[in-house]
């Protein structure tokens, strides 16, 4: 049975926590999650990233294990605070409303 987009997004988020110690939050953006033409969208809050002042998703191709195009947008914790205060905007079509806030796996 092929993996669902939601499960694939979870697999990817867990993998990201295992390889990046600075990762504080990973959000799976719900927009388009049920639409096969839409990519997986991950917003990642990373203490080790360089703030750029904007939220820019970068698209990546599907793979054997994650058979969905994936967009990753990485921001710093300070930028996340700005986002919460409305001083920074999510990309068009992205929303945190109903987003899956993936917890860090215990072993990661």
């Amino acid at each position, binding site marked *: 049975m092929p993996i669902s987009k939601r499960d694939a997004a979870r697999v990817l988020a867990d993998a*990201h926590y295992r*390889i990046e110690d600075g990762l504080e939050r990973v959000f799976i953006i719900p927009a388009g999650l049920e639409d096969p033409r839409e990519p997986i969208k991950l917003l990642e809050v*990373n203490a080790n990233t*360089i703030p750029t002042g904007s939220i820019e998703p*970068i698209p990546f*191709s*599907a793979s054997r294990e994650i058979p969905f195009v994936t967009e990753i947008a990485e921001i710093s914790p300070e930028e996340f605070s700005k986002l919460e205060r409305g001083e920074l905007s999510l990309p068009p079509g992205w929303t945190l409303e109903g987003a899956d806030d993936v917890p860090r796996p215990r072993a990661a």
Partner: protein
Amino acid sequence: MTGDRRSQFAAAYFDQAWSDWQTYVYLTRAAGLPRCHSLHYLQMACEKLGKAYRLRNGAADVDAIVTRHAGFAQFVNEFLRSPSVVDDYAGQSARHKAVCKTSFALAREIEKLAPAIDRMHSPENAEYPWERGN
């Protein structure tokens, strides 16, 4: 430039990144040249390659991407967590983690070779290499 502006920019950045890279290789082999010249081309090649990839995004803000020098290190960081790279390192999390850490640090150092990046903390750069008197 004709057709879709974003795609045209992406193709142009990729072509010029390749040309910058070839120049970097040429300069590293040339005897007697100060290292700042080859490092300048390395920085430009990496910046343009990152921009070319980021311009693949159909919703990309073309003007924001083409006018900023920063973004290569973040691009490298995200690329190393992309599905295909995660697949390549399946079952090797510790190795993948080490590669990510080293690559990001290296990408950040290359990014800082541009004079506009982190000038306060890293005034030394490849284009104007006399900021610290050397």
